[in-house]
């Protein structure tokens, strides 16, 4: 098996402002060509982490290596291999989309010809051709975010930091943004994404690191995280109250919860095949008729609430 190559390696990263410990020892590793989502509520330390990784902020202790360069010592080298898309779309509002792209390209040290050619390519790719020569301040929120991302891609850096790229966007713009991000991933770009949206991490990321209160509280793939908190649930609905009552009696022991109004019960299951079959066998033996049946995987929302809730309790 080939050895995994980590493009971003963060070890025991700590940062505090006075007595306020924002990061209490973060560890991260991002493999080349994959996406890691940093998931956490507001104030968890996501943006602070990204600002440190993108050389905008100093840190107190630990080590941060990006593409083999130490961010504290080789900031300039790091800057030439990263692209940053911030929370507040940082483009020049008075310049046009094209002017923004060319200017940033030139500042990435691209030649004039390369910057202009690449700007055209990105305008096309990000569906901004019609608005290319209008000042950015006339852009809609979604367009501005696309321009902001395009700007960070102008020199095709191998590593991209996306700091809450869809916060505040309407659902349609969000999905358009996801498509763009997926295309980036298909091109082999290594991405570190921060988000407070579980669905976003679930949709896009290879690996998820959940942080809260400046600490990593869980990590793994979306599936691993879901498995770590909750079991799958089998949800059964019945025709009426007597059927429900009979089912409750028959399935006793495996019940998780029931709903009188909906005539439904939930059963925790370990092995989908085995346990679903067992439950159905019991019901058919007792001649209890089912209306609907569904297997629910725990959502990342369940994971997130379980984890951050636990965290709060530990601190209290």
């Amino acid at each position, binding site marked *: 098996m080939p050895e995994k190559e980590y493009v971003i390696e963060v070890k025991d990263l700590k940062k505090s402002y006075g007595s306020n410990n924002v990061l209490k020892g973060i560890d991260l590793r991002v493999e080349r060509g994959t996406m890691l989502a940093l998931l956490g509520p507001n104030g968890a330390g996501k943006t602070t982490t990204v600002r440190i990784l*993108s*050389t*905008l*902020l*100093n840190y107190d202790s630990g080590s941060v290596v990006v593409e083999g360069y130490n961010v504290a010592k080789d900031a*300039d080298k790091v*800057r*030439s291999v*990263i*692209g*940053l898309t*911030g929370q*507040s779309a*940082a*483009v*020049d*509002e*008075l*310049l046009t989309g094209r*002017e923004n792209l060319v*200017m*940033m390209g*030139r*500042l*990435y*040290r*691209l*030649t004039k*010809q*390369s910057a202009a*050619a*690449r700007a055209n*390519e990105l305008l096309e790719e990000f569906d901004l051709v019609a608005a290319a020569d209008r*000042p950015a301040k006339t852009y809609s929120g979604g367009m501005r975010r696309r321009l902001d991302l395009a*700007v960070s891609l102008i*020199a*095709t850096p191998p590593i991209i930091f996306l700091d809450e790229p869809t916060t505040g966007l309407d659902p349609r713009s969000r999905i358009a943004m996801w498509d763009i991000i997926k295309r980036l991933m298909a*091109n082999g770009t290594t991405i570190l994404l921060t988000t407070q949206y579980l669905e976003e991490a679930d949709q896009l990321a290879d690996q998820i690191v959940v942080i809260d209160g400046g600490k990593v509280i869980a990590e793994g793939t979306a599936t691993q995280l879901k498995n770590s908190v909750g079991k799958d649930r089998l949800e059964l609905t019945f025709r009426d109250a007597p059927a429900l009552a009979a089912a409750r009696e028959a399935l006793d022991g495996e019940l998780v919860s029931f709903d009188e109004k909906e005539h439904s019960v939930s059963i925790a299951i370990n092995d989908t095949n085995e346990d679903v079959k067992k439950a159905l066998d019991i019901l058919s033996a007792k001649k209890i008729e089912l209306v609907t049946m569904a297997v629910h995987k725990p959502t990342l929302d369940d994971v997130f609430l379980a984890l951050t809730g636990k965290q709060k309790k530990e601190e209290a």
Partner: protein
Amino acid sequence: MATELEFEKKPKAVLAFIDSLIMIKRSSQHIIRNTDQLLGTFFQPIMFLVLFAAVFGGAISAALPPGVSYLNFLMAGIIVQTVAFGSTTTAIAVCNDLQKGIVDRFRSLPMTNLAVLNGHVVSDLFRNSISTIVMLLAGLVIGFRSGASLADWLLIVAIILLFTLAFSWLSAIVGVLAKSVEGVQWLTFIVIFPLTFASSAFVPTQSMTPLLKAFAENQPITHVVEAVRALMLGTPAGDHIVLSIIWSIGILIIAVPVASWLFRRKTSN
């Protein structure tokens, strides 16, 4: 990624210089795009010139040297006042950049960050030059006349440019320190307003109270105004030319490193 990208391969110093040129281009594009400021650049100087000449002209002419019209006297003062106020746009631009997060973007690029300041200061020079030319043309229309030679005019241009540069760098310091654009406006207002009015820009200093007169006659704006005025009117300039240049260079020697240091400090943690 279809396009094969080519990167500049030049010495570091050359790249840093190119960064400044890129930033100068950016800030200069702002001059045209920022329509509100454009009004300030073109109409405010004309308005001040016409208003001052019409309102104060009659009352002040008695205090002027014989044979000098108030418009001819006023021209130097109003130009210096306009550039002094105009230099505050550097502060606003720097403050804006810092507030809006675009400086963070620049900092994530492999560029020289100080180029941001250079860009604003140099474009300020362009904008103030436009204002000055507009004012001179408007002055000519309403009766301003000067007997200055080409050499005199070149000296006038040099003095005004140097002064503008100096005040823009001072202004850059304000821009880095200020917490909001409104703060910048207040700060520059309470500094520039007294400086321009407690000077010989609009009235001769003879009639001022002794304390005010002592202040007015020894501050940079009066030296710049007197130097430009003497060159325009062909009257003896005394030591005003030398003193105005010394003041401007003195301000630059202090303001450039201070502004750069503050900007670096602000943008590095």
